């Protein structure tokens, strides 16, 4: 494998404590050197990076690749293409496939399809319970052996506290956090949006913030009691932030993520009765979004994750009660986060998108320290307008459609190969 010299970019690396103009030399799939001036070795490809930020590869620890079982919504290949176009060098994929990722063979199959796609790295997340039904435990050790990096029942909150506690105890020493999607189904009912003035005004069934809060509290307490590290997915309420602070004060091993949509959008987006903004947990009130933005600035939030959840246009055009939850996020993420917290220091931006998810998942990357994988994200503050018809994801739906976002990915390098440059997937990316 050849060498790549990334020349003249602003290198931001929270691990190295670096925010300065530097050259970065990649060789044999690893970072070889970071220095002020590096002479291009013979035969090296030179990537001029003046005017861009050069960061350790971004890792999205919450995506839905839909394969196997829902290939009409997305495939591992199309999802990985969307990832690298959005500036992500790696994604962790949720197990809510059909069948669910609850067996070593399925984990291996996902990894095989990801290698065949040849773009982003894929880290499968195994189920906590068989078929994500919340009854019997998934085979944690064998899922780990096959390559699962974390465990989650994803959109199915493990309803039984006993089952979740048993799972956490059994899996205590298995590498891989438990990722909790926190929604109490009894409080949520048949809700299609957040319960608040908007839902009351529109006559739509709403899910209260309490539905999240009670499960966040429960799962953090289970984390504390069992000692199993928990990662709370997509926080959406102000109270969840307070609960995270409480857990940390107690010394509980817990981390959390927030999506861009929960930071900038609110329940006003259900106006017009369209399902574009229908998502779990729902877009909340603007007070919640403001509290989440404050939590990002104050350092309570560990990770930016997209919850990339592609669906077909036809599915999202249905009436609210009938339309599926979620929307594509990989290709808007960098811009949407920059729009959400424009004053966030770049070192924190990179930590939330790279260093922290790498640490929480226990995967390589998150830094450009020599010897690290040659996974690099180049981005720049260039405004652009979201046009879903140009998405590489099969899911052409997002409430950000038509929005102008202030930041975008410029190039994505995975394992020392440039897989995306200026929005174009490079041919070498396919079938490598």
């Amino acid at each position, binding site marked *: 494998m050849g060498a790549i010299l990334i020349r003249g970019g602003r290198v931001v690396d929270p691990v190295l404590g670096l925010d300065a103009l530097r050259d970065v030399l990649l060789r044999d799939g690893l970072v070889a050197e970071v220095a002020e001036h590096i002479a291009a070795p013979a035969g090296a490809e030179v990537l001029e990076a003046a005017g861009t930020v050069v960061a350790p590869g971004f890792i999205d620890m919450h995506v839905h690749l839909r394969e196997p079982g829902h290939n009409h919504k997305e495939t591992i290949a199309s999802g990985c293409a969307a990832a690298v176009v959005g500036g992500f060098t790696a994604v962790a994929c949720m197990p809510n496939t059909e069948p669910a990722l609850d067996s070593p063979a399925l984990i291996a199959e996902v990894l095989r399809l990801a290698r065949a796609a040849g773009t982003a790295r894929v880290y499968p997340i195994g189920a906590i319970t068989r078929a994500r039904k919340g009854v019997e435990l998934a085979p944690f050790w064998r899922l780990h052996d096959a390559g699962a990096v974390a465990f989650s029942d994803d959109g199915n909150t493990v309803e039984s506290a006993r089952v979740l506690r048993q799972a956490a105890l059994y899996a205590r020493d298995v590498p891989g956090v438990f990722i909790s999607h926190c929604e109490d189904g009894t409080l949520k009912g048949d809700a299609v949006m957040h319960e608040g003035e908007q839902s009351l005004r529109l006559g739509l069934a709403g899910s209260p913030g309490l539905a999240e809060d009670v499960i966040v509290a429960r799962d953090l307490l289970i984390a504390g009691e069992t000692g199993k590290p928990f990662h709370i997915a997509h926080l959406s309420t102000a109270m969840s932030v307070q609960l995270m602070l409480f857990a940390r004060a107690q010394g509980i091993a817990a981390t959390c993520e927030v999506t861009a949509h929960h930071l900038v959008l609110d329940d006003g987006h259900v106006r017009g009765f369209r399902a574009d903004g229908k998502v779990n947990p729902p877009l909340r009130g603007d007070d919640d979004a403001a509290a989440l933005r404050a939590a990002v600035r104050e350092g309570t939030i560990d990770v930016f994750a997209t919850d990339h959840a592609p669906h077909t246009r036809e599915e999202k055009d249905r009436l*609210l009660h009938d339309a599926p939850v979620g929307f594509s996020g990989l290709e808007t993420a960098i811009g949407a986060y920059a729009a959400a917290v424009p004053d966030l220091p770049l070192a924190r931006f990179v930590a939330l998108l790279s260093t922290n998810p790498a640490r929480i998942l226990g995967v390589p990357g998150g830094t450009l320290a020599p010897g690290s994988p040659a996974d690099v994200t180049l981005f720049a503050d260039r405004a652009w307008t979201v046009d879903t018809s140009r998405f590489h994801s099969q899911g052409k739906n997002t409430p950000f459609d038509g929005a102008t976002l202030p930041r975008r990915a410029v190039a994505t390098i995975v394992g020392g190969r440039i897989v995306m440059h200026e929005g174009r997937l490079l041919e070498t990316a396919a079938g490598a």
Partner: protein
Amino acid sequence: MPALKAPSPYSSLIDLDDLSPAGITEILDRAKAFHAEPPPRDLLRDVSVVNLFFEASTRTYTSFALAEQRVGADVVALPPGSSSLGKGETIADTALTLAAMGVRVIVTRHPHSGFPARLAESFAGHVINAGDGRHAHPTQALLDLLTLETEFGKLAGLRVALVGDILHSRVARSNAIGLRAMGAEVTLVGPRTLLPDSMGGDGPRVARDLDAVLPHVDAVMLLRIQHERIASAVLPSLDDYARNYRLDARRLALLPKHAIVMHPGPYNRGVELTEDVLRYPGWRYAQQVSHGVYVRMAVLDFLVNG
């Protein structure tokens, strides 16, 4: 960011906030004129109207059908379950199909909030909402406004209490919007599980004590209580509800002499009201039903002919 209603170049009636106060007044005036003297039966000559009801309805359906006949429209009724929407056709496809056949007006009722608004987005004609989910029932609210105006000669300044299951009631929502637009004072009354505190927002007053409200109103609008609210743990029992909110002889006596009592129907005797209410001189249910036909004639005329 998306507007409250998807922009449509065609006039539809999805909820009463689609109309200005002047528009509401115009419809009420036309309804009164039709009541006084039947209009010529060719107001909507050669206008095709489809009644697209996805939910059972006796009063509203019959009322619309009579109104459509009396303005001379060509009417097609699609019985519930016959629409190909259930077979995977999208809302937009249904709208295109009906428009291509020359349909100018769709009157629709649907169990889920939002169907008429979504239909109106795609339909090159007029959509009239005959009730959608918990969202809106604008022609019911208009006939209630007509009943109040006929009674009191005005709407501005009237004090109206809406009592009962506000949360699940499209009638209450549309009435609250219409009454407030016309300058009436609205008080919502009910238990917290049927009337969240935040329901009022910056709008209507929210009250829990019906006995304290009754002496200070010109009209009481009762809402139907569904038995299923007990199974879903929203109410403990009908008796427990009745203790605080059923209108009976004792509570009728708390009303000012001039006050009227209304109900969108169908009413449950013994639940939200006792037989005493049916004998009360100010019970206006029959007038409401009668006004419904004239209001719907007026809405058809207003949307199609301007």
